[in-house]
C-alpha cells in the first residue's frame, strides 16, 4: 500500500524537469563530496608540518578577519541603510544608488589601489612631502595585514548589508516605524528599539554574504600578506605541489563554513518575525540644518572612499601607462571575459529556472534540492577549483577509450584542458546568485498562473514556456546581470581553472599586480569596473521598461 503510494507519487513527479535538476545537483555536489572524501585519506608529511606550525595561525587569521569584517560592514551598512531609507537630505537620491558602486570594484583591485595610493610613493604621502614638506610616518598609512584587509573588505563589501537592509526598511517596516514615531519615540530610540531588531534577519543575511566573500577571498589576503586557509590552499597546492594537503585545508574551511551556516540559522530563526507582505513604502523624513549636512557628509565620505577616490586614482594610473600597456589584447581580454561570463550565466539561468520551477512544489525533496543547488556560494573558489579539477581529470581518464576511438590520441586531456572546466566552476560558485533571483520571481508571481494553464490542458513544459517564463522576465534579467557581474569580477576560479591561452580581465589584473606592476594593472581594472557599472545601468533601464 505504502510502496504503491510512493510509486504513484514518484511517477507523478518524475519528468524531464526533475532529471535536469538532479543532474545540476549532482554536478554541484560531486566536487564538494570529493573534497570531504580527502579527510579519510592518510595524512602525509606536509600535512603534519602544516598542522604543527601553521594551521592554528591560518584558522585564527581567518576567524579574526571574518569577525572584524562582519562587525564593521554591519555598522556601515546598517547605518547607511537607515539614513537613506528614513531620511531626506541633499543628494540622497544619488547616494541611494551611488552607495552600491563600491561593489563594482573587485576587492583585490581595491586593495592594491589603496595600498599603492597610501604607500610611500603614493599620491597621499608624496603630496604631503612635496607640497607641505611633511613626512608622515609611512607605517601609519600602510595598508597591510589584517587591519588593511578589514579596511578594504569593509569599504567594498558593505553594500551587501546596505542593499538588503535598505530594501527591507523601505518596503517592509513602514507600519512599525511610523507607529513608533507616533508613540513619541526619538529617532535614535526608534532605530535601536524597532529598526534594529526588526531588520535583524535582513542584516544577518547581508553579513553572511560578506562573510562568504571574505572566506573565499584569495586576491586581497595574498596581496596583503595574510595567511588564511584560502591562501594556504593555494600555497600547498602550487607551492608544495600537494593537492592532498590542500584538500585537507579545504575540508577545514568547510568546517568553519558549516559553523557559520548554523550560526546564521541561530541568529535568524531565533526570532523570526512575520511581517505583513502588503506594506506601504516608508516616507522619508526631511533632515534640516546640521543633521542634513551630517547625513550628506557621512554618505559622501563613504562614497568617496568606497568608489570615487580609487576610481579616479585608477584613471590617473591608466593615463600614465596607457601608451605603454594598451594594445589590442585588451579587446581580446574584454571579449574573453564577457564570453565566458555570458555562457556561464546562461547555463546558470537555464538550470536555475528548471530547478526553481521544480522546487515550486515545496516538497521536502525540492527543499533539499534547492539547498544543494545554492550551496556553492558559500564554498570558496579555491575549494571548488580543486574539486572540479579532480573530477574532470578522472572524467578524462574515464573517457580515454572514447577519445582514442575518436582519433584524439592515447589518453589525452580534453575536458580538463577546455573552457568547460572553468564554466562548471562558475556554475557551481554562482548558481545561487541566479537561482535566488529566479526564485524571487516565482514567489512574486505565485503558482496560480501556471495552475490556470494546466487546468486549460497545457502540460508543465509548454506552460513553462508560454506562461511562467514571460511572467518572470524581470527576475530573469536581474538574475542574468547579477550573475554576469559576479563572474566578470571573479578571480580564484579563473586563475585556477582557465585553459591555457585564456585570460580574463581579472586574471590579467592579478598578474600585473602580482608582478608589482600596479600602474600597469589599472587599465584592466578599469575595464572590469566599467563592465560592472554598465551592466547595472542596463539592468536599471530594462527594469524601468519592464515596469511600464
Amino acid at each position, binding site marked *: 500500500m505504502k510502496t504503491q503510494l510512493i510509486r504513484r507519487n514518484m511517477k507523478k513527479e518524475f519528468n*524531464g524537469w526533475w532529471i535536469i535538476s538532479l543532474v545540476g545537483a549532482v554536478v554541484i555536489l560531486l566536487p564538494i563530496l570529493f573534497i570531504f572524501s580527502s579527510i579519510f585519506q592518510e595524512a602525509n608529511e606536509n600535512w603534519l608540518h602544516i598542522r604543527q606550525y601553521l594551521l592554528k595561525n591560518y584558522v585564527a587569521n581567518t576567524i579574526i578577519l571574518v569577525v572584524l569584517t562582519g562587525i564593521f560592514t554591519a555598522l556601515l551598512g546598517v547605518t547607511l541603510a537607515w539614513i537613506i531609507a528614513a531620511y531626506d537630505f541633499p543628494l540622497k537620491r544619488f547616494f541611494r544608488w551611488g552607495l552600491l558602486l563600491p561593489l563594482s570594484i573587485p576587492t583585490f583591485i581595491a586593495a592594491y589601489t589603496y595600498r599603492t595610493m597610501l604607500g610611500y610613493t603614493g599620491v597621499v604621502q608624496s603630496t604631503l612631502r612635496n607640497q607641505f614638506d611633511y613626512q608622515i610616518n609611512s607605517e601609519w598609512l600602510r595598508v597591510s595585514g589584517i587591519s588593511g584587509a578589514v579596511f578594504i573588505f569593509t569599504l567594498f563589501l558593505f553594500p551587501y548589508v546596505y542593499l538588503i537592509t535598505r530594501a527591507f526598511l523601505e518596503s517592509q517596516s513602514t507600519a512599525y516605524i511610523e507607529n513608533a514615531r507616533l508613540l513619541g519615540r526619538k529617532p535614535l530610540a526608534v532605530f535601536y528599539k524597532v529598526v534594529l531588531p526588526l531588520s535583524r534577519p535582513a542584516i544577518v543575511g547581508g553579513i553572511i554574504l560578506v562573510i562568504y566573500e571574505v572566506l573565499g577571498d584569495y586576491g586581497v589576503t595574498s596581496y596583503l600578506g595574510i595567511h588564511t586557509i584560502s591562501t594556504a590552499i593555494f600555497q600547498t597546492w602550487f607551492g608544495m605541489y600537494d593537492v592532498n594537503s590542500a584538500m585537507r585545508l579545504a575540508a577545514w574551511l568547510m568546517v568553519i563554513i558549516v559553523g557559520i551556516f548554523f550560526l546564521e540559522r541561530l541568529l535568524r530563526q531565533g526570532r523570526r518575525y512575520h511581517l505583513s507582505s502588503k506594506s506601504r513604502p516608508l516616507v522619508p523624513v526631511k533632515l534640516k540644518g546640521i543633521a542634513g549636512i551630517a547625513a550628506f557628509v557621512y554618505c559622501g565620505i563613504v562614497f568617496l572612499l568606497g568608489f570615487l577616490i580609487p576610481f579616479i586614482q585608477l584613471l590617473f594610473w591608466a593615463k600614465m601607462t596607457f601608451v605603454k600597456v594598451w594594445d589590442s589584447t585588451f579587446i581580446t581580454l574584454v571579449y574573453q571575459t564577457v564570453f565566458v561570463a555570458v555562457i556561464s550565466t546562461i*547555463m546558470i539561468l537555464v538550470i536555475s529556472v528548471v530547478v526553481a520551477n521544480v522546487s515550486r512544489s515545496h516538497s521536502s525533496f525540492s527543499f533539499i534540492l534547492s539547498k544543494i543547488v545554492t550551496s556553492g556560494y558559500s564554498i570558496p573558489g579555491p575549494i571548488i577549483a580543486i574539486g572540479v579539477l579532480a573530477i574532470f581529470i578522472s572524467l578524462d581518464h574515464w573517457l580515454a577509450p572514447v577519445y582514442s576511438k575518436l582519433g584524439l590520441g592515447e589518453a589525452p586531456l*580534453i575536458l580538463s*584542458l*577546455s573552457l568547460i572546466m572553468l*564554466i562548471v566552476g562558475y556554475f557551481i560558485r554562482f548558481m545561487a546568485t541566479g537561482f535566488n533571483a529566479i526564485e524571487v520571481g516565482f514567489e512574486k508571481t505565485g503558482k496560480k498562473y501556471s495552475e490556470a494553464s494546466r487546468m486549460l490542458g497545457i502540460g508543465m513544459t509548454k506552460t513553462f514556456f508560454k506562461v511562467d517564463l514571460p511572467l518572470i522576465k524581470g527576475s530573469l534579467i536581474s538574475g542574468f546581470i547579477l550573475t554576469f557581474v559576479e563572474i566578470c569580477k571573479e578571480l580564484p576560479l579563473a586563475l*585556477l581553472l582557465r585553459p591555457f*591561452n585564456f585570460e580574463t580581465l581579472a586574471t590579467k589584473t592579478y598578474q600585473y599586480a*602580482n608582478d608589482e606592476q600596479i*600602474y600597469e594593472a589599472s587599465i584592466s581594472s578599469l575595464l572590469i569596473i566599467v563592465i560592472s557599472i554598465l551592466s547595472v545601468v542596463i539592468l536599471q533601464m530594462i527594469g524601468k521598461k519592464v515596469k511600464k
Partner: protein
Amino acid sequence: MNLAKLFKPLIVGTALTITLAGCGSNQGDPKGDESAAQPKTTENQEVNIYTARHYEADDELYKNFTEETGIKVNVVKGKAEELIERLKREGESTQADLFVTVDGGVLANAKQNDILQPVTSDVINENVPENLRDVDNQWVGLATRARIIAYSKDRVSPDELSTYEDLTSEKWNGKLLVRSSTSLYNQSLLASFIELNGEEQAQEWAEGIVNNFARQPDGGDRDQAAAIAAGTGDVAIMNTYYVGLLANSEDPEELKVADSIDVFFPNQETTGTHVNISGIGLTKHSKNKENAVKLIEYVTSVEAQELLSAANYEFPVNPEAAMPELLESWGDFKMQELNFDTLGEHNKKAIEIFNQTGWK
C-alpha cells in the same frame, strides 16, 4: 507516462549543454585564436611557449623571432607552478614546446617533475656559459637578477655591508627589510644557503634575519625599497630587477626612491651573490622541437640578450651582450656557484625553516 513529454525538456537541455560545450572546448584549444589553422599543416612554422614571465620585453623578442624566421610563436602565460602542474597533467598530449620561468628553484622543480628534455646545440652552448645552463642541459639560462642588499645612501655606508650572514648581526637590529617567505625568491635564497652552508646554519641565518626585522614582512621588493626611503629600515634584501624598474619608472616619486638607495653585492669575498635565473627549457613531449631549439638559440643571441637587458634590467646570460648603463654601473660581481638543481631539492626544507622561524 508519455516518453516524448518526459524527455522534451531533457533534450532541449542536453542540446544546449552540448552546443555550449562545443563553443567552450573550441575556445579552450590551447593554441588560441591566433593560430586558427590546424596544427599539423603548420607544424614547421610554429612554436608554442608556456611562460611564467609576463614581460613586454619577452613578447618583443618573440615578435622579432617570428619576423626573422617566419616561425609563429604562440604564448601561453601563467604562474610557474600552475604551468608545471599543467604540463604534468597534459603529459604526452601537451601542445607546449618550451617552458619559460623565473627562478632556478622552479626550473629545478620542472626538471624533477620530468617535463623537460635535454637540448643540444652548439650555438646555445656558445651563447650561454656552462654555469648558467642546467647540468643536464634540460634548460638554458635566459637572464639573471641578483638578490642584493639595497641600502639607504644617507644612513648606511657600503663599508658596513659585507655578507648575507652579516645581516643577522646586532647592528642591523630593527633595520632590516625583506619580503614574505612565500616569495620564491626568498625560498631559493634560503635553499642556496642550505646547499652552501648546511641546514643548521641556514636555520640560524633565518632566525637572525627574523630577529632583525624592521617590521613584519610586507609587500613586494619595490615596497622594501620604498620603506628604506621612508625611513622604516636601512637595508633590504631585494632583486636588482626591481631596482632597475624603480630607476626607470614613469612615476617621479619612484625615481626619488631609486635615488635614495644604492645596491650592494654581498658575499663577494665568500660564496658569491645569489642570483635568480630565468630559464627556458624544451618540454619532454615537444612537437616542434627544431623550431623550439631555434628559438632558444635566438633568445640567447647577443642581439636578443641586449634587447632583453635594456628593456627589463636583467643581466644577460650571453657574456658578449652589452648591458644598460645602470647595470653596467654596478660592475662585475661574483655569483654563487652551485648546481641549480639543489635549489629545487631544498625548497621544501626552506619553506619548513621559514615556518619554524616565524618568517611570515
